[in-house]
């Protein structure tokens, strides 16, 4: 009998006034009872619209059916048939615009909490580790993956399951890409990411850190070394800045730098040497998930006031609803329809203010969003000692610029076929932010999975 309560089973969370000052995970996760109760809300409908909303096509009603019966390990097995990092996706996917957006229960109430259930199944597995992962039998073929973020790890995991010998090359000292340096601990605990990566290693995936591909080794040299195909998942690159006066002042960070110092380099922990400014008053510029992460991280470093400066209205914000909701609960002050025009510094080059202008919405632009226009004589100054710019980034240039025959578009995104992820160079595939520009973890994973299928087909055809 389905549970016909119209709302999702609430997710237990740390109280806002407590969590805004610590880096522990905000959402503490369902209990077994809650998971079973929420799973029972799924109607197991025939046409399964949720599955088409998932970029990696998880058999959602099937895993939920297992959960409703308390068969959590079985549920996990269903998920991992198509997803390599379920504990990550359950936490960071924008479910409300994907699987949950298509859920029939969402018509008259709230959709089934698919993400929350996925997270529970994955955490259950990681905690109990009941199933032994065995390394699949080798098929004798080698594939190289450049970048160990969501697309690279997914591609590596999918290929390893097919028996390929996969080596992942990572530039940083730790594998995980944006999952490690970008998304904060309070949203995605790093221990969880590392456990997922350990799982991939058990499948036989080899990870080489400190390898800046394109510099220490070229794509062509990988082929010379016997790799039969290469996947490029090099992710985000050079951060965008506003191009306004004062962006070189001390206290102006790109969100990438601010978050990397905190997440990867653990600047918030005393025992680490990484320095970071602990600002009292902060302005974060942008309206995406990264802007929310930066705002909430600034609070946790002890900031008294955090202003989120966004030039459009809340409706146009690209961030997940949950992140916006959490940021507000924790006390981030939203300055909407506001655009920064100049960072103001003191005589030592330190930030003392952000001059902004008020905006109003005009006609829709190319993206379909109403484009903001500055109001005349509406300039005002926010008193801040740090400004964090979170307005996206261009793709990483290192592999693209050192690989002959690999073409990119004007923005520097690697050109890849959207169905096969094949690039303009034979045997080379690409996916994730390196291809799309800044997007989501799950889209990158979808691309990694598609690429793995294409690589498998390519190598099998080549050897026939």
């Amino acid at each position: 009998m389905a549970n016909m309560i119209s709302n999702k089973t609430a997710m237990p969370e740390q109280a806002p006034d407590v969590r805004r000052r610590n880096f522990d995970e905000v959402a503490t996760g369902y209990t077994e009872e809650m998971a079973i109760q929420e799973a029972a809300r799924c109607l197991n409908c025939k046409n399964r619209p949720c599955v088409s909303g998932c970029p990696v096509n998880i058999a959602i009603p099937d895993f939920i059916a297992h959960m409703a019966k308390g068969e959590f390990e079985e549920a996990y097995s269903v998920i991992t048939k198509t997803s390599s990092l379920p504990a990550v996706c359950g936490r960071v996917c924008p479910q409300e615009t994907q699987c949950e957006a298509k859920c029939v229960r969402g018509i008259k109430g709230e959709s089934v909490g698919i993400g929350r259930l996925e997270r529970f199944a994955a955490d259950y597995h990681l905690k109990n580790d009941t199933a032994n992962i065995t390394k699949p039998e080798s098929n004798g073929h080698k594939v190289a993956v450049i970048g160990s973020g969501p697309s690279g790890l997914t591609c590596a995991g999918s290929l390893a399951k097919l028996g390929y010998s996969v080596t992942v090359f990572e530039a940083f000292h730790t594998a995980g890409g944006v999952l490690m340096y970008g998304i904060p601990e309070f949203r995605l605990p790093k221990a969880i990411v590392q456990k997922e990566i350990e799982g991939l290693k058990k499948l036989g995936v080899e990870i080489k850190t400190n390898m800046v591909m394109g510099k220490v080794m070229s794509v062509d040299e990988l082929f010379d070394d016997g790799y039969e195909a290469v996947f490029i998942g090099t992710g985000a690159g050079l951060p965008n800045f506003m191009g306004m006066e004062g962006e070189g002042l001390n206290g102006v960070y790109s969100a990438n730098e601010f978050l990397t110092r905190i997440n990867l380099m653990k600047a918030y922990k005393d025992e680490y040497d990484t320095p970071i400014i602990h600002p009292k008053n902060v302005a974060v510029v942008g309206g995406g998930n990264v802007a929310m992460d930066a705002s909430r991280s600034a609070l946790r470093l002890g900031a008294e006031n955090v202003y989120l400066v966004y030039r459009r209205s809340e409706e146009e914000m690209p961030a997940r609803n949950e992140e916006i909701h959490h940021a507000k609960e924790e006390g981030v002050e939203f300055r909407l329809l506001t655009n920064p025009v100049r960072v103001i510094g003191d005589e030592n080059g330190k930030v003392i203010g952000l001059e902004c202008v008020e905006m109003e919405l005009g006609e829709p632009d190319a993206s379909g969003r109403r484009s903001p226009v500055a109001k005349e004589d509406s300039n005002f100054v926010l008193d801040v000692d740090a400004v964090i710019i979170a307005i996206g980034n261009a793709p990483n240039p290192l592999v693209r610029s050192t690989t002959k025959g690999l073409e990119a578009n004007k923005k520097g995104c690697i050109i890849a076929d959207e169905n096969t992820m094949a690039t303009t160079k034979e045997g080379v595939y690409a996916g994730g932010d390196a291809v799309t520009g800044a997007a989501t973890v799950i889209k990158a994973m979808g691309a990694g999975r598609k690429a793995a299928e294409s690589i498998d087909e390519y190598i099998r055809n080549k050897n026939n």
Partner: protein
Amino acid sequence: MFKVIEKTALNPYMTKMVVEAPLIAKKAKPGQFIIFRVDEYGERVPLTIADHDAEKGTVTIIFQKVGYSTKLLDTLNEGDYLLDFVGPLGAPSELEGYKKAAVIGGGAGCAIAYPQAKALHDMGTSVDMIAGFRNTDLIILEKEMSEVSDNFYLMTDDGSNGNKGFVTTALEQNIKNGADYDLVIAIGPVPMMRAVSELTRPYGIKTIVSMNPIMIDGTGMCGGCRLTVGGKIKFACVDGPDFDGHEVDYNELMKRSITYRNNEQTARERNCRLIRNAEVN
């Protein structure tokens, strides 16, 4: 893990370290840099490659024990390991096609200016090497620098080597005496690089400076190493480290370089890890 093969104190403040890193040694070119991290708790710190030996698979770094992390690095001895050592990063210097170059090193900058002078010398460019130090006790690489230059000028701020003056003193004299440089390379403290650039500007001599700002990844992701060159934002890690000395905004650069001075002092006062390491050694 990366093994320290050789460690030499060049003077009381500077250390030369030869590190086993065969893949980097195979690819390194003059002007490129590495990023090291001593241990799990350490910062990622960029250092320009002073020398490399592809056959032996080694990379040489020369560093001044000026901040917390370089002091920590200096606690390692031959046979010890660095946790992380990544590179070669940055764009190699473009040194082809010059007739006569002045290569200028200031203090620790000589460690990086020397391989540039050597590369130019090996390509048949006439090289005037000008090296400046605060006093005679701090002089490093004297023999090496003199070997790769047609004329070698060694200056000390206090005149303790009998040749008092700044590097700009020697450079200006040479230019005025008709040294027809088509390239000047200046590597050292930011005020020195600025002074050299200001000196060559009216003569229209191409002047290259090498940047070593604060970085994290060194691969064009974090944006921490940005500087303004010709009015545009550039990233030292991928667009540099070499830039046109006449275009760099030195004021901004100098202010940015002291962002964490307070943190640095706190770390030094705390000093717990250095003391702990010293006790172990």
